[in-house]
């Protein structure tokens, strides 16, 4: 997070020439590199702050309540129905081959490895990354962040680290809950739609899972939590252009964190499959 808008040391010419396309592209690329650099620095600092005092425990608990408890209803609802719809979609295919009992296997693997962490990450990004960006952005434009600095408080410790830590703690828990209610939803759907016994569904769903599947899901949820919280903080604390800028930052935080989550998911899946083969 920069302390101040980018400063210049040389006086600028008062007459501005119309920039060429090359200049515009070069400046856009430079801005992108600067953003990546500042984001990486802020993210590293948010974790490094956790190792030293002062720590803001109450702020972290408040954020855990907001991010974790606050996101619970949407995670529960979406998790249940995603599990159910997966059974409806896959069950029909398995029925054609007389292998309806495999429904539990496929739903369980998909939820634990992929859908649980990704859907939870995207939902929490939509709800909390935007919330973080708008809250911090509003604080920035109303000079509350400067007021904090003026009173000797480091905003990265007070505002960023508690949000990152709270996300890292709560998103994996939300993912676990999402997977569990997803399996419940799948079980209900399989009982009523496929006439599969609950015991069979549950035994197959649990039996297919290996430690590496659980680790894959857990690792993804950790990384997604880190992405959604740091992107929200970065966008919020780099607002330009007053209240309009806050709105822009809010939208950008959701878009950027969602895209980053999906890209990270691809690479993590490839890495997890590679490691599963090796180990």
């Amino acid at each position, binding site marked *: 997070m920069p*302390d*101040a*808008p*980018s*400063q*210049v*040391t040389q*006086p*600028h010419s*008062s007459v501005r020439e119309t920039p060429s396309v090359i200049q515009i592209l070069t400046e856009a690329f430079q801005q992108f590199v600067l953003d990546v650099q500042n984001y990486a620095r802020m993210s590293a600092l948010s974790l490094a702050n956790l190792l030293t005092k*002062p720590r803001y425990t109450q702020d972290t608990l408040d954020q855990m309540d907001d991010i974790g408890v606050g996101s619970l209803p949407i995670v529960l609802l979406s998790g249940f129905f995603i599990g159910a719809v997966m059974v409806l979609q896959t069950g029909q295919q398995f029925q054609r081959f007389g292998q309806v009992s495999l429904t539990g296997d496929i739903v369980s693997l998909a939820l634990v490895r992929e859908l649980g962490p990704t859907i939870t990450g995207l939902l929490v990004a939509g709800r909390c990354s935007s919330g973080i960006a708008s809250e911090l952005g509003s*604080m920035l434009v*109303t*000079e*509350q962040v*400067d*007021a*904090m*600095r*003026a*009173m*000797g*408080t*480091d905003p990265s410790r007070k505002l960023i680290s508690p949000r990152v830590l709270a996300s890292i703690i709560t998103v994996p828990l939300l993912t676990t809950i999402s997977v569990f209610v997803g399996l419940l939803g799948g079980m209900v759907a399989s009982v009523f739609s496929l006439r599969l016994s609950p015991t069979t569904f549950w035994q197959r769903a649990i039996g297919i899972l290996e430690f590496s599947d659980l680790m894959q899901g857990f690792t993804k949820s950790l990384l997604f939590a880190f992405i959604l919280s740091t992107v929200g903080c970065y966008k919020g604390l780099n607002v330009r252009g007053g209240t309009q800028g806050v709105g822009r930052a809010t939208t950008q935080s959701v878009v950027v964190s969602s895209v980053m989550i999906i890209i990270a998911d691809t690479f993590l899946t490839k890495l997890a499959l590679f490691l599963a083969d090796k180990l």
Partner: protein
Amino acid sequence: MSLPPPSAIPPPPNAEPALRFDDVWIGFEEGPILRGVTFSARPEETLILLGETGTGKTLALKLAAGLLIPDRGRIQALGHDVSHKSEHELLEFRRQVGFVFQEGALFDSLTVAENVAYRLKEDGATDDEVAPKVQEVLRFVELEHTMEMLPSELSGGMRRRVSIARALITRPPIVLYDSPTAGLDPITSQTIITLILRLRDVYGVTALMATHRLQDGFALANFHFDPKTRTVRKGASGDNSKQPITRFLVLRDGRIYFEGSPEEMLRTTDPYLQRFLI
């Protein structure tokens, strides 16, 4: 209210400046804003920083508090070289400086009492230690009854007064005011100026006040607060040696255009300065 006594000994004329700007430059993407600003403030002195909108008054205050780093030049405050410190070192330094932001910059999710107590709580003070101090400074700004209110429930003038109370809680030797009366009605502006007078004459703070209202500067120069009678009186205090010094600085095009006493400002024949006097 147990207010500390005013400083018994006035600062000697050659005292080390509490605040010094030495050829300070700063600019942003649109170009330089401050171009070689140089001035200094002695302990307990009040500097009125006048200028049109966009001349860099707020920037000068933020530089003095170490919230911005100059592109060139040197800033010294309370013996610290503010322009060459890391952010971590500056956090420590800023605890000795009070900053009253233009719109108050109160934390909108905290109550008035929590806002005022913020800095003490950050230092690890307990509720029992904090409560009487919060009560005292809120009484000083005559807002004791607003302790449990949120900033959104306060008027603009009340928010500025809470902001002054928040800056005052640790008794900083330097207080920076960013247009404290901007956008306020004349009566509320007068209340704020009276508070600044009291803060100066009771606590003996060094002040740098950015404003575009000349009358605020003259009010600080021509009135004083008598702690004994607790009233604002016209003219110098009984003991002239204790009379705080008020000086005007006028910023124009990023440079100090005028620096002088209220009398010199009043007598000026400069057409630009006379525009402030109308």
